[in-house]
């Protein structure tokens, strides 16, 4: 069982290192992450929202609905912890 697991880990490791070759170089201006929407956000954020922090503008303004979902996820996680661990008493 241990040898099978070791073989599986080595096999997946080789595949992952093989895939690293195709990743764009660090800070590459031509990479997909920096060329399409990234450029658009940098150029349009000041005009669209008027705030200086692009990260916050994306988080709350461009993707506000997603962030609302994130907050609900945190709320649900906290409620679940309370339901599992709290002894006696009410919520």
């Amino acid at each position, binding site marked *: 069982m241990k040898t099978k697991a070791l073989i599986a880990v080595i096999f997946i490791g080789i595949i992952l290192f093989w895939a690293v070759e195709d990743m764009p170089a660090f800070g590459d201006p031509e990479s997909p992450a920096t060329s399409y929407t990234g450029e658009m956000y940098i150029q349009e954020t000041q005009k*669209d*929202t*008027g*705030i*200086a*922090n692009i*990260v*916050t*503008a994306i*988080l*709350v*303004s461009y993707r*506000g*609905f997603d*962030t*609302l979902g994130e*907050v*609900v996820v*945190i*709320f649900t*996680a*906290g409620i679940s*912890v*309370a339901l599992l*661990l*709290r*002894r*006696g*008493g*009410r*919520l």
Partner: protein
Amino acid sequence: MRENVVIRTVSRLAVPFIQLFGLYVIAHGASGPGGGFQGGVAFAAAFILMIIAFGVADVRKRINNRGIMIFSIFGIALYAAVGLLSILFAGNFLQLNVIEAALGIPHLHGILIDIAEAGIGITVMAIMISIIYDMADTGGGSA
């Protein structure tokens, strides 16, 4: 449970500064590095330090389970209220730029983003304190 006098004195000195830093991080979400998630966790860290120094029972007197539930729901409601506000000005849900365009107040978009960030911060702070309460509870009569 009370720790020794050095820990109590130092944490009593440190807690207001940690809380102030948490509020600063939340309030600077729009103009600098920061935001609701980070600031809420920093604010909750002050409560965790108080729990370590003074015990759960002392901190529960300041904010109890009912207060935590109210705070965590209020944070989400504040965020959703900002989103619903844009529907009043004939926009989509959370389309904040229509409010600034309708009222003509400069920087209103950033102010609304800060209010939404404050909602995120309140919820994250309350949930963090709730998790610490539940984990620090010994199961004795203190619940």
